[in-house]
Structures are given as structure tokens and as C-alpha cells.
């Protein structure tokens, strides 16, 4: 039985209700519907609960971003258009403003001088230096050092100036700092073990809110920081509430018990209902993940790019989105969401074309055998497709593609496994035939895709990277190497447009759709800006307010 069926009122539920009704009436309780908006506070509801409030140590993006954005700041943020905007830094370094040297190796960062930690101490370059030292400290369980490992030299010039020298030019370096918020040196430097510090549960930051109370498993209450350097928040209290069941959280968003429903969003099959609510807004937000069919290019069936393209061509991609995901995903031709600044708009749709697919396989020499399955040189066009077991939407997608492929003489067997198995060595050591998987870009939301598509990033061969499809193309390698050194956005756009063009032709991974989340908010809650550049639905919390 699906959970969605569970919400239809039946005679049985009325019976259950009948049993409980006298007790409820005896309580004489007030109505949940009549709740007026308390404009002194905003309640954000999510299905997951953060356990780590130290911005250096969190693991669960989306959930643990919330304590981070409440209590801490990065040097710069990224806005809804994908531009970096200064936060603790006075300006974002670029070649034009002299922040990045002509050779791209030296980054000069100027910090704001008016920022204070919520305990009253002044924020300074020492804090940024301490944050960097913590990140490279092998004894601290930092989730990622990506980008920071290119730092050759870190110099504090004075209280508001830093100079960083890289060992190679690397434009996505800005993303490394965007992803790491700054922690206070004066409170943490003396901690013997930051991993187990009591400070992690009651941190002090520079952010727009301060943690006042945490009720484990229920909610966290934050109070406004009146001295916030970007202006004090427009409401006194921010409450992060945890409701583990998605349908129940949706119910609370409807009754008004939460003002804003974030992660995991309104269930796909309820978007129509949510859109129709007069006093609510459904905010559809692109998420960084694009769902793909991943081909293992080293397997004999998939060595020829024509086979991969023909298989992609046969798939009814748009139908899979409409039928399985209720049209909530957006069709994309690339590893980026169509809303991304570097997305190549000129890529043409070529899927849902079984005739063309069959012709292409014929041309490539794959002929239909006696059993109805295509073969070439003794290799059958027969393979497995794996993903996380127990995900009905993904299973539905697999079943549709299985039918699509069967029509052109290709046999696919569904072989799903628990998440910790399928995404373990089965993936990282490229043991799969094909997989249905949703992945985000590799350096923040930068279009760089080196880790996934460069031939030196195949873990089976080089022990590093995440090019699990084992795809190799010399031109793509060169373009990816060029892309991370280009400071001019237009130049980069061209480089990555060509990368996307080649990938659409050779298809090491066939994009199905970009994932979207439907967040639900009360109409009067203003300032929320949906963005595809972070999974943090409260990234601009300091700008929110009630109308």
C-alpha cells in the first residue's frame, strides 16, 4: 500500500476516528486551522534533523546547511543567478578588480572590518587562517579539502587582508571558500580535539541568528543577532522543526504549523493540489542533481559510442519524467540543469526515436540474433541496470527503459541493491553494466566536470577521481583542463558548451532530467529566492520577512 493511498478517508478511518473522538472533545482543544501568523518568527519544517552544527564538520547538505546559514558566514555567497556576492569578504576577488593575479596563482582577499562574533569579539583574518589550518589538519574529520589542497602559501597581511598562493591556476577555487564557513579562532584554537568539542553543540558564529534552544528530535530555536553585519533579520526568532514523515510535514504546511516546508518538499503527486492553495506558494526549486543512465564504457557492449547513443535514443526520456515523476523533473540534455549559466541551449533532443535507434545499431553492426537479441562478434546486447532498491520512481523509470530497449532488440535486466552496496565498490570500482543515478556537479555548482569525465580520473586505473563510466576522450580532457584556468565567464561558457556537445554525442552517461523540489510557503513570507546553485533553501535567510 502506498502512503499516498493512506490519506483517503474511508469507513475504517472514520471508525478509528469515532473511537478517539470523545477523548478529543473532552480535551476541548482549539483548532489548528485558525492559527494566525506570528510575525515575530518563521518556522521552517524539514524531514531531516541536523546533528552537526560545526560548519567544518557537517555531512548532510541541505539539512546541516541550516544551522550553518543561521550561525555562520562564508567569505562570499552565491546568488540565485550563480554570481558570487561578498559576505565576510569586502569584495569577491576577480582579475578585473585585481583580486586574482594575471597568472591566476595569487588570490588577494580583503575582509570586512565591521564584523563581530556573537560573543562580541571582532572577526579578523586570523579566523580565516585558523579555518584554513583546521581544514588541512589531518586530525579533524573535515568532509572535503577540495580546492584547499591547491594552496601553496597562506599569508595574513593584516587584520583585513589575506594573500593565498595556489600551485596552479584554478578558477573554481572560489567555490571551495563558498562551501566552507569561517569558525572563530579565539574559541577553537585551544580545543584539544575539535571533533569532540562541546562548542560543536553550542557554537558561536557571525551569522544572523544565535542558537537559543535545541530539543533533540523536535526542533531548534534561534534568536536574532541584532549586530549582524548585513543588517539584523526582520523577525526575532527562527525555528527549524523536524518532521520525519514527508506526508505529515506536508500536512503541517497545510494546517499552518510550519510556515515554510523545505526538504524533502511536497510529494511529486501533490504539486497540483499545493499550487491550487490560495494562501500558499509552491516554490519549485532546481536541485543540483541530474538523473542519468550511466554506461560502463569499458564493458564490451558499450565500447562503441554509437551503441550508447542508440540506447539513449530509444529511451522515452520525457515520458519517464511525465509518467513517473509527475512532470516535476525538468528534461536536460547535459549534466547541468537547464537553468545553469553554463548550460548548452543548442543541444537538440534526440530521444524517443526507436526507429533511428534501431538503424544506428544496424549500422554499427549489431544484428538481431535467433533469440531476438542483438549481437556482434559473439557479444550479446544484454546487460543489467542497477540503482537503490526500494525506490519506486526509479524502478518505474527502469521498467519503462526496459520496454523501450526490448523494442529494438536489447535485453536489460533490473538488478537493484541496497544503497550502501550499490554505491560502494560496485560503483567506485566500475563493476556495473549500467546504473540509474542522480549526481551533482563536482566543485560546488561550477560547470567543471573533471572528476567525472577526465580520463585521468578513472579510479580503476589511477586510483582517484569519480569517472566511474571509465570514459576517455582526449578533446574532453583538454577542454576540462582549459576550463578551470579561464577567468572570463564567456570563454568558460564556450569551453563547457563544447564539453556538453561531445558528451551528448558520445553519451558516457545519458541525462534523463534535472531534479526539482517543491517547497511550500505561506504567501505572506517574503524574500525567499529559489536557486539551483545551492541545496540550502534558506541561503538568504537574512533577507526574509513577513509582508
Amino acid at each position, binding site marked *: 500500500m502506498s502512503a499516498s493511498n*493512506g490519506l483517503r478517508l474511508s469507513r475504517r478511518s472514520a471508525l478509528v476516528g469515532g473511537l*478517539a473522538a470523545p477523548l478529543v472533545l473532552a480535551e476541548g*482543544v482549539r483548532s*489548528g486551522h485558525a492559527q494566525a501568523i506570528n510575525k515575530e518568527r518563521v518556522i521552517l519544517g524539514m524531514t531531516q534533523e541536523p546533528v*552537526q552544527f560545526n560548519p567544518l564538520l557537517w555531512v548532510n547538505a541541505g539539512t546541516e546547511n541550516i544551522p550553518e546559514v543561521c550561525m555562520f558566514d562564508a567569505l562570499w555567497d552565491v546568488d540565485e543567478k550563480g554570481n558570487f556576492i561578498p559576505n565576510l569578504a569586502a569584495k569577491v576577488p576577480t582579475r578585473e578588480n585585481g583580486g586574482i593575479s594575471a597568472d591566476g596563482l595569487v588570490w588577494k582577499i580583503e575582509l570586512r572590518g565591521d564584523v563581530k562574533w556573537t560573543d562580541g569579539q571582532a572577526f579578523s583574518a586570523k579566523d580565516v587562517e585558523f579555518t584554513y589550518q583546521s581544514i588541512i589538519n589531518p586530525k579533524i574529520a573535515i568532509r572535503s579539502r577540495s580546492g584547499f589542497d591547491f594552496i601553496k602559501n597562506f599569508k595574513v597581511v593584516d587584520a583585513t587582508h589575506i594573500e593565498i598562493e595556489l600551485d596552479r591556476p584554478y578558477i573554481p577555487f572560489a567555490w571551495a571558500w563558498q562551501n566552507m564557513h569561517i569558525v572563530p579562532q579565539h574559541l577553537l584554537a585551544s580545543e584539544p580535539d575539535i571533533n569532540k568539542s562541546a562548542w560543536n553543540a553550542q557554537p558561536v558564529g557571525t551569522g544572523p541568528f544565535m542558537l537559543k534552544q535545541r530539543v533533540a528530535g523536535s526542533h531548534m530555536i534561534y534568536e536574532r543577532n541584532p549586530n549582524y553585519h548585513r543588517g539584523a533579520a526582520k523577525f526575532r526568532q527562527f525555528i527549524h522543526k523536524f518532521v520525519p*514523515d514527508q506526508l*505529515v510535514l506536508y500536512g503541517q504546511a497545510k494546517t499552518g504549523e510550519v510556515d515554510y516546508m523545505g526538504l524533502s518538499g511536497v510529494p511529486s503527486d501533490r504539486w497540483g493540489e499545493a499550487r491550487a492553495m490560495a494562501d500558499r506558494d509552491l516554490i519549485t526549486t532546481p536541485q543540483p542533481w541530474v538523473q542519468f543512465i550511466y554506461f560502463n564504457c569499458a564493458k564490451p557492449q558499450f565500447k562503441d559510442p554509437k551503441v550508447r547513443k542508440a540506447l539513449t535514443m530509444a529511451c522515452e526520456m520525457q515520458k519517464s519524467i511525465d509518467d513517473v515523476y509527475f512532470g516535476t523533473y525538468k528534461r536536460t540534455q547535459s549534466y547541468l540543469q537547464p537553468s545553469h549559466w553554463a548550460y548548452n541551449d543548442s543541444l537538440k533532443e534526440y530521444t524517443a526515436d526507436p526507429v533511428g535507434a534501431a538503424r544506428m545499431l544496424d549500422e554499427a553492426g549489431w544484428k538481431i540474433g535467433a533469440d531476438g537479441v542483438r549481437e556482434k562478434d559473439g557479444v550479446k546486447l544484454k546487460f543489467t541496470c542497477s540503482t537503490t532498491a526500494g525506490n519506486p520512481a526509479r524502478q518505474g523509470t527502469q521498467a519503462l527503459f526496459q520496454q523501450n530497449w526490448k523494442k529494438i532488440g536489447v535485453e536489460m535486466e533490473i538488478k537493484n541493491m541496497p544503497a550502501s552496496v550499490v554505491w560502494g565498490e560496485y560503483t567506485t570500482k566500475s563493476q556495473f553494466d549500467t546504473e540509474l543515478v542522480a*549526481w551533482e*556537479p563536482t566543485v560546488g555548482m561550477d560547470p567543471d566536470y573533471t572528476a567525472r569525465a577526465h580520463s585521468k580520473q578513472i579510479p580503476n586505473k589511477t586510483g582517484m577521481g569519480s569517472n566511474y563510466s571509465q570514459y576517455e576522450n582526449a578533446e574532453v580532457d583538454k577542454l576540462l583542463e582549459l576550463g578551470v584556468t579561464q577567468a572570463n565567464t564567456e570563454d568558460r561558457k564556450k569551453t563547457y558548451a563544447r564539453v556538453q556537445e561531445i558528451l551528448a554525442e558520445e553519451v558516457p552517461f545519458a541525462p534523463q532530467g534535472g531534479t526539482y523540489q517543491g517547497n511550500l510557503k505561506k504567501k505572506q513570507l517574503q524574500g525567499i529566492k529559489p536557486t539551483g546553485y545551492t541545496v540550502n533553501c534558506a541561503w538568504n535567510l537574512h533577507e526574509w520577512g513577513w509582508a
Partner: protein
Amino acid sequence: MLSYVGRRVLQSVPLLIGVSIIGFALMHLAPGGPLAVYTLNPTITNQDIERIRIVLGLDQPVHIQYFKWASGMATGNWGYTFFGGRPVLGVILERMPATFLLMGSALSLAILIGCTIGVLGAVRRYSVFDMMATSGAMVALSFPTFWFGLMAIYLFAIKLGWLPSGGMYELGEEDNLLDLVRHLILPCLVLALVITAVWSRYTRSAFLEVMHQDYMRTAKAKGLRAPARLLRHALPNALKPLIALLGIELPALFSGALVTETIFGWPGMGRLFVDALNMKEYPVLMGMIMFTALFVIVGNLVADILIALLDPRVRLS
């Protein structure tokens, strides 16, 4: 009696050690691990993961990890969570009151109603009431708890708006007792519904068995009235299996109700267990396994002692 209790306590030590070894081994044998959460993140390199493995001590052989954990436990150090670095004992203790409240109220309510229905059903066997109670219990046992939970929320929180749909407090009303009761009603009733069904069935069959014994007929023959026969003769004998059942259910006071707590967002042990399981938080899982094992042992010991007190034929020696 004291020496019996002392012996049982001593016997429980190797039992607890055995439970901890099996629990620890099973956790590490299961595929995946706490680092799986990092493997899908493209910005996290293999080197990053290896470094975190060392920091968390997961690079050491399993038996060394076990001895480190066990020696910590022996000195009262329950370890620290992998994610968040908090003391495990604190993480468990902060969830305990919520679970005690929910399970305690649901169990008491369910036992009270369940036993009443069971006794009445046994006394008036095959009556309309008995048949309704039997079919009601079957319905309650057959439907999954989450269905009842969602139905209750749909009806009372969303359609009628009488009760909150989840959580333990109205935000900012943490000290308001009436508010707590309002939040407790739905999860308590949903949970009690199923437990009531179980207890009514057990009580009915325990009483039925007793009521056809010779001594009951003798009691009737010597002219005792029905209430006296039930209270003085049937009840003490019928209670034995029920006390044993209580002993088995006592650990639930600690372990909580996974489904009900999740549906109603009740911040108790069940939720903690689900979250810890998803994250493969070994230290928290081990802590909870040990607590539960302890409660099982205590529950059974208490049941045995109670039975001995009730029945002079049972000797604790």
C-alpha cells in the same frame, strides 16, 4: 530471594557481554558503513575518506575497535557519536523522557482497556460483545500502524483541526502541560490501539483457560458469587502469563515505537534508532542495544519475582 536476585544479576553479565559481541559483529558485517554517506559526494576524494576513517578509528581491525569500545563502557565512557562528536550517553538520555512518556501512557492505557475487554470477553464468551471485541482486535492487529497514524492525522489534525499533527510541544510552549497532553493524544491512542488488541487477546485466553479449571467449579459449587470467583480465584492464576507478557513488553518503554514516533515526529528513542541506523552511527546503536538488553534482563527478572510472589508453588531458589 536476595541471593536469587544476586545470582540473576551475576548471570546477566556474561549475557550482556555476549549481546555486545553479537551486536558489534552484526553491525560491522552488514554491508556499507558510516563512511558511505561520504562516498557519493563528488567533492570528497578517496584521500579525504581515508583520513576521516582514521580520525573515527574505523581503520582498525574490528576486534580492536570492539575492545576499545568495551573498555570504555567498563569505565562508564559510552563513547562519542561519529557525526557531531557528542557523548553517546547524553544523546540517549536526552531522548528517554519522551519515549517513557509515550510508551508509558500507551502501555498503561492499553493494558487497562485490553484487560477489561479480555475479561469481559472471557466471561461472556461468544456473546455479541466478545465477537465484536475479537473482530476489532483482528482489525487493529491487521492494519499497519503507519496507516492508523496517517488516518488519525488526516482526520483530527488536517480535516477537523482539533489536535496537532505531530511533535511534542507547540513551539515555545515547552512548559505547558495541557499542550503536551494535546500532542500526546494521537500517538498514544494509535499506539495503544495495537497494544490493546494484543492484551485483550492474551487476557481473554488466559481467563478462559483458568475458568474451566476444577477449582473454579469448586468455588462455584461452594456458593461464591461471580465477582468473588473472578477476583479471588481466577485473577491470580490468569495473571501469570500476563505478567510474563509485561516482562517482555517492558523493554519497549525504552526502545520506543519506531513507526509511531516517525509518523508523529515524536522526539523519542525510536526516532533516534532509525536515524542512527540510517547514518550507521555505531556508538549510538551499540549504546541503545546495551540499554535494551539491560531492560530485557530487568523486565524478565521483575516478571519472575512477581510470579513467585503471586504463586506460592513457584520457589525462587
